[in-house]
């Protein structure tokens, strides 16, 4: 009995991990479509950006270290000087008009692509909590 219970628990844990994973996979997939639709023309197909003009998202220290700021940038726009991987950018990204679930999806995509890794999935609720000021 003990063994059955233990294996049941292990199985459940595995499954919840699995469903978390498929959730992330689905979110990333939707995010990749949003990326192709809304971001690719500036940040380029592999997130490499355009030096001095559009900052990279691939291995971007800004994106990795500033999760909330990045969500805020996508919700409300970003203006003024920032430094990404040692390069100064002083541009302007207008708010893109994405809904909160779309911001979560595209964040999950860009934080898990081109060598980026993000252990904690970004949810619509997390995006909703990020305020303008």
């Amino acid at each position, binding site marked *: 009995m003990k063994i059955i219970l233990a294996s049941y628990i292990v199985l459940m844990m595995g499954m919840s991990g699995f469903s978390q994973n498929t959730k992330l996979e689905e979110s990333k997939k939707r995010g990749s479509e949003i990326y192709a*639709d*809304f971001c*690719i023309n500036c940040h380029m197909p592999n997130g490499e950006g355009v030096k001095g003009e559009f900052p990279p998202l691939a291995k971007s220290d800004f994106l990795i270290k500033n999760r909330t700021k990045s969500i805020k940038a996508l919700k409300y726009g970003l203006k003024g000087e920032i430094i990404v991987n040692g390069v100064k950018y002083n541009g*302007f990204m207008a*708010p893109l*008009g994405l809904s909160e679930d779309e911001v979560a999806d595209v964040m999950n995509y860009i934080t898990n692509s081109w060598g980026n890794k993000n252990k904690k999935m970004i949810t619509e609720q997390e995006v909703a909590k990020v305020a303008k000021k």
Partner: protein
Amino acid sequence: MNRINLLFIAIFSSLIACAQQIESSVKAKDATSVTYTVEDVVTELNIPWGMVFLPEGGMLITEKSGEIIHFKDGVKTEIQGVPEVYVRGQGGLLDLELHPDYKNNGWIYFTFASSKGKGDGGFTAIMRAKLDGASLAQNELLYKGGPNTKKGQHFGGRIEFDNDGYLYFSIGDRGNRDENPQDITRDGGKIYRLHADGRIPVDNPFVGKTGAKSAVYSYGHRNPQGLVKHYKTGEIWEHEHGPKGGDEINIIQKGKNFGWPVISYGVNYDGTSLTDKTSNSGMEQPFFYWVPSIAPSGMTFVTSDIYPDWKGNLLVGSLKFKYIERLVIEGNKVVKREIILKDLGRVRNVRQGPDGYIYAAIEGEGIVKIIPNK
């Protein structure tokens, strides 16, 4: 299989993997000497999409985020009564134009992304209105494309009048290149022509064709953000964004198909081929094409005597390279491309004002005036 065959296969497959592009016939070069200075006219603008000069002095400027700004004697006033704008991706409040007889009738025309009508999302619309103090009045929606879509791309949106008073405007393919641009029964990927009051001219090319959008004047366009009347011929000149390479200048002709996406000098953003054709029967060749892309927005012919060396030239804003291109045209060909106004920022719009000076709208900055050295 011998070695030569293998070599051929290798070459051939590398051709497929990364499509070859033919660069523009004339390359852009820096000016040999700078012969002008630049003066700030309006500061602190974000994305100044459209601008017009009012005969009573001052100007109206659209911000993509949805505001119309009146600017006069250094004072900005936000105009009230602007319709609800669908701000998403490249969509928002777009161009602005005055009726050729604005002095007498007061009509202002503007394009914007609108979510009006059926379905989620939005599509490009054109409205006219009059100024009543600091507010819009008598708003009339003249046309709105559909069906609404949540896609963020290619709203087009430039407006121009011709010598006969017809109103032209562009709508891009709305991110649906496989369905919209080649189908005259669908909106998007088109140049439209209307009477100034919004009626559809009876001699528009597709009037009476079953299912056709009768406001359509030409089709097979990708994302036109430049539309200007030629100062001599009166023809409507257009430019449009290509994908990666393949931006075009076209001279718009009634009922003609400009080929997108069947023919193009561009490739997909990731470098893969989108079509192997650059020409096809029944499809127009561009007047000029850009490879690599400059991401053109706004254009004007220089006609004033203020710039003797530039007279008759076409100026085109480049979002991508942050400059204005001066295109010298001889006969039916571009013979020279020169870079001016380098590094001020992404150039969204360029126009010659009624005072003969050239004005450029720069993203994140504002509007500047180009003053030639004495």
